[in-house]
């Protein structure tokens, strides 16, 4: 019963925070709500035996990406935007589409029953420790994608610098 209660709390918090994130007029507020949201998600990950992912969620998402967002929002100085309409005029269309997607996904997952069991049971992970198990997998089977991911990050760094740099000559 207890896990279900916790889940209920997380579900409620995550959905509510999500709605808050997308409905705030001021982006700074949105970012703040999102920060809370990420903490909620990270906590939920702990209940799913994924400590490392929870850590990443906090460190990378909340710590790095959101800070980036915040910087940009502050940098842009969006005073006029705060007075204008938040949504496009045709927002009901968006609602219909989002609803349809929700309905579609729901209909697919509602009856889903897991019928597969891998080798990483809770016991195994507890014994090996989560970080080590994940690390082993990353550095063996997923070594190549891992390296590619590092390259992507490198490119993103360079790209961000090039894009955001003020043009000296123009």
């Amino acid at each position: 019963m207890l896990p279900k209660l916790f889940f209920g709390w997380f579900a409620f918090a995550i959905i509510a925070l999500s709605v808050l994130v997308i409905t705030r007029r001021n982006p700074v507020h949105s970012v703040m709500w999102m920060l809370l949201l990420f903490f909620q998600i990270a906590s939920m990950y702990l209940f799913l035996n994924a400590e490392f992912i929870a850590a990443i969620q906090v460190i990378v998402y909340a710590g790095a990406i959101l800070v980036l967002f915040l910087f940009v929002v502050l940098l842009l100085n969006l005073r006029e935007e705060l007075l204008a309409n938040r949504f496009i005029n045709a927002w009901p269309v968006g609602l219909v589409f989002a609803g349809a997607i929700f309905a579609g996904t729901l209909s697919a997952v509602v009856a889903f029953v897991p019928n597969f069991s891998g080798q990483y049971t809770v016991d195994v992970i507890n014994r090996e420790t989560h970080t080590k198990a994940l690390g082993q997998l990353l550095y063996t089977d997923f070594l190549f994608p891992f390296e590619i991911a590092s390259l992507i990050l490198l490119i993103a760094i360079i790209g961000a610098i090039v894009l955001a740099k003020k043009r000296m000559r123009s």
Partner: protein
Amino acid sequence: MVPLNWYLMLSAAVFSIGVFGFLTRRNIIIMFMSVELMLNAVNISLVAFSHYLQDLRGQVLVFFIVTVAAAEAAIGLAIIIALFRNKATAHVDDMNEMKG
């Protein structure tokens, strides 16, 4: 024990909220955040799958998604800065430079 379906339904809900935000908000930064929301929805379902199927590969995927999200955020925000510098607006319906 919480059934897997609940997590998936939660994920679907968050995803749909993200979609709604992306489709309806005018502010490009909020749209961007909606995208992050969708990514997180997917992460939730992946972690849940990983837990219930007892397979760590789902979490490896999450790891990569986080990486890509970071890269995407860096590039995307850089673009937004460049865009704002030229157009002085963050409202996407003020921009249609790519009109055919």
